[in-house]
């Protein structure tokens, strides 16, 4: 079987339909968000050790960062 490219190996081509400008008064670039906004619209790439479940780790992150909502991006197995 010839090896197929994984999604992270695929290059995306950008096509421009029209030009426009964005008003600096509204919104803000993701990297310029305030600390509070960064937390509110943030993700953490956690190195989860074997043992505790994803749900447990989410609960710890919630407590450490004093956040109301913390989710995780999927478990390995029902018991993981």
């Amino acid at each position, binding site marked *: *079987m010839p*090896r*197929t*490219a*994984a*999604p*992270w*190996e*695929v290059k*995306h*081509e*950008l*096509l*421009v*339909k*029209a*030009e*426009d*400008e*964005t*008003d600096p008064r*509204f*919104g*803000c*670039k*993701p*990297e310029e*968000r*305030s*600390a509070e906004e*960064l*937390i*509110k*619209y*943030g*993700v*953490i*790439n*956690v*190195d989860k*050790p*074997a043992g505790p479940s994803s749900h447990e*780790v*989410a609960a*710890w*992150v919630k407590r*450490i*960062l004093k*956040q*109301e*909502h*913390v*989710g*995780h*991006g*999927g478990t*390995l*197995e*029902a*018991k993981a």
Partner: protein
Amino acid sequence: MTLGDATKVVQALLHSGKEYVCVMKLHKDVGIEQIKKVLGEFEDNIYQRPPLRASVKRQLRTRRIYYSDLLETDGRKVLFRTGCEGGTYIRKLCFDIGEVLGCGAHMQELRRTRAGPFVEAGSVILHDAAYWFMMWQEKNDETFLRRFIQPMERALDMIPKVHVRDSAVDALCHGASLTAPGVLSFESSVKAGLMIAVLTLKDEAVCLSRAVVDGNQVLNMEHGFVATTERVLMPRGTYPKRWKSGSRKNE
């Protein structure tokens, strides 16, 4: 982990490609060349029925294995790295590899090394996260937070993107479909039926949408729907409202 309002982006990660490093235990001795050959045979579309203990409907489905590379063997233990479509069961894959080898096999250990754009190399341990969070509170220096918290837009890195005009943003935040006049640029990988990320010119995420046309069609479209909004990520009112109910859009 997703924080606060970013929990909505997990949608984009669940179906994204994954990479694992796995220890498979063979039930009999098998030569390395034979193992390599069979791993290679599985670099394809494979059929899997979710295991008994699964959180999804147990019906036969296909998943793509992009690559399976043998890293090391130690007796009957086989260490390999595999890149696959989201929703692939590695335990099943190991069992099936064992069947094809004729010796039987099971999965012994598993570690995910990638979920969509997030790789193991860029991950942080909880101890560091807790320490940096405390340092941010004490020193009031945001760089501590930025060491481990990334903007939610990072999670969208690998799904096709569409950039829209400021004037289209608030309508999208209210759940309206994306129409052709609002589109400024898009990636050629946009395909009808696929999930796409809608961004502003400042690269902020507006929403996750389902494309209804292919990318190459959008270029020549003057009106009509491009995508339907599925998950709104930006709060309403971030950009000014530029639409009137009951009449055509202002711009």
